[in-house]
């Protein structure tokens, strides 16, 4: 009798779906989370507490814009997963691309939708100088730091000196901004709890993960093959793809994506092969040294992370798709005719049923953390 009750209770208890060994290995590849911190050797301020504090102040500093009204935080809002909710960002002028999230940004190999920068500090310099974004020059950035006693004090604390060369001051500002952004990491999610429980064989804990999310995950690593590009703990392979999103901006203008990104990378004085890399071994410059420019790069954009993507709508490089459901529908009905003839042969219409599409959305929603991790501090000019 007792045995029958135990069996009955076991039968009534919620259970995780059955996952094959291959599925488990694919799921395991999306963790563990969070990843350990590894300082960026190209940035001597990486992981430095004083640099993080300086970077945080600079991130919200409106004087770092040509009109004195904008800061990095205009487009990267903490409460919106460090995006802005706009299809295309608005700085001093409308920009051609969607604002990418800064959460987990330190895990990237390439930065920006086109990967035109190979370090977070170089990427942090780019919007400062872009006339459509913050519209500053190295002369103006250096003058601000030198002319503000608190900023100058903090700069010296991090880097030892305040250089005479304006461009060198600008690079220091980029490195401090990067040190702050390296601290932005999303938290654990329902998916992470499920992944760990599944790998431990803890059926009871795994069963707490909603059925719809489990079914969506099966599609993600199976029929959908979404994990071909959205792989790894951050759900991105860090590389570039043509996903059939039109790259026409307006009449007579196209966004060349990665094709221009590689050329801009090579031309940048701030790339990892240049003089501002603090790592004499250039140990993180392998990609820069070996990246190859091909015709198929035209219209390719970087695979975004999927963590916390609920808060980053609208989606894709130009914000063309309003909701997660629109994104899933895009891949479900994609026409191979819209892809490069000489490009990758990866995407084909998934032809998901209504229920399958809902399940994939449920899975994507489970990649959301509990939120509220970032608390903006009150800044005081108290550097000594």
């Amino acid at each position, binding site marked *: 009798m007792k045995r029958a009750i135990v069996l009955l209770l076991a039968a009534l208890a919620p259970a995780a779906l059955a996952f094959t060994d291959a599925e488990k290995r*694919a799921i395991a590849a999306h963790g563990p989370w969070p990843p350990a911190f590894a300082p960026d050797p190209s940035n001597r301020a990486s992981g430095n507490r004083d640099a993080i504090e300086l970077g945080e102040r600079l991130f919200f500093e409106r004087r770092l814009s040509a009109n004195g009204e904008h800061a990095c935080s205009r487009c990267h809002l903490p409460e919106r997963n460090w995006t802005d909710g706009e299809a295309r960002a608005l700085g001093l002028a409308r920009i051609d691309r969607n604002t990418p999230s800064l959460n987990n940004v330190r895990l990237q190999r390439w930065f920006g939708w086109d990967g035109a920068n190979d370090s977070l500090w170089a990427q942090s310099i780019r919007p400062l100088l872009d006339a459509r974004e913050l519209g500053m020059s190295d002369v103006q950035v250096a003058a601000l730091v030198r002319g503000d006693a608190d900023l100058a004090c903090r700069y010296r604390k991090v880097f030892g000196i305040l250089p005479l060369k304006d461009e060198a001051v600008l690079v220091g500002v980029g490195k401090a901004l990067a040190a702050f952004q390296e601290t932005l990491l999303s938290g654990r999610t329902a998916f992470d709890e499920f992944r760990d429980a599944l790998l431990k064989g803890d059926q009871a804990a795994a069963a707490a993960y909603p059925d719809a999310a489990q079914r969506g995950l099966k599609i993600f690593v199976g029929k959908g093959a979404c994990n071909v590009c959205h792989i790894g703990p951050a759900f991105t*392979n860090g590389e570039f793809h043509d996903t059939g999103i039109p790259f026409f901006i307006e009449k007579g203008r196209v966004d060349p994506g990665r094709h221009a990104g590689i050329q801009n990378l090579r031309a940048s004085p701030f790339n990892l092969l240049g003089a501002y890399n603090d790592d004499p071994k250039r140990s993180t410059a392998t990609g820069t040294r*070996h990246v190859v420019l091909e015709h198929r790069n035209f219209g390719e954009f970087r695979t975004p992370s999927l963590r916390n993507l609920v808060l980053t709508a609208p989606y894709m490089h130009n914000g063309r798709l309003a909701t997660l459901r629109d994104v899933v529908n895009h891949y479900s009905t994609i026409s191979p005719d819209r892809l490069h003839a000489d490009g*990758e042969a990866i995407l084909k219409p998934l032809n998901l049923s209504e229920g399958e599409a809902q399940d994939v959305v449920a899975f994507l929603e489970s990649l959301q953390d509990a939120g509220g991790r970032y608390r903006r501090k009150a800044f005081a000019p108290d550097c000594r």
Partner: protein
Amino acid sequence: MRNWLWLALFAPAAQACELPGGPAEKLESPKYTIVYRAAPPLRVGGHFALEVAVCPAPSELRVDAWMPEHRHGMNYRPSVKDRGGGRYRVEGLLFHMPGRWEFLFELRAGGETERVAHAVRLE
């Protein structure tokens, strides 16, 4: 006769083609033996290098990789450093997707080119 024997005693038995330091993949072609090892071990999204030994040593070695089913190669062009004696270091490789990849070894000597492919699967 005495000279021939001398040569036979000191010639490598089967021209040993090895990489010291652990297990490695060994490929045979009509003309060459290729031994290679990835370091760090292959994983999706991580740069790696190859240590390669080729016997007999060609005059030039080129290395590339692609995903035949996806119809694309890597986003990086590897560089080959000739260390002499048929030993090479290949740098700058990165497999950015899971699935079946093929290493392509192109060996040139005496105006002839031989190509050797070797498939690996990444999860």
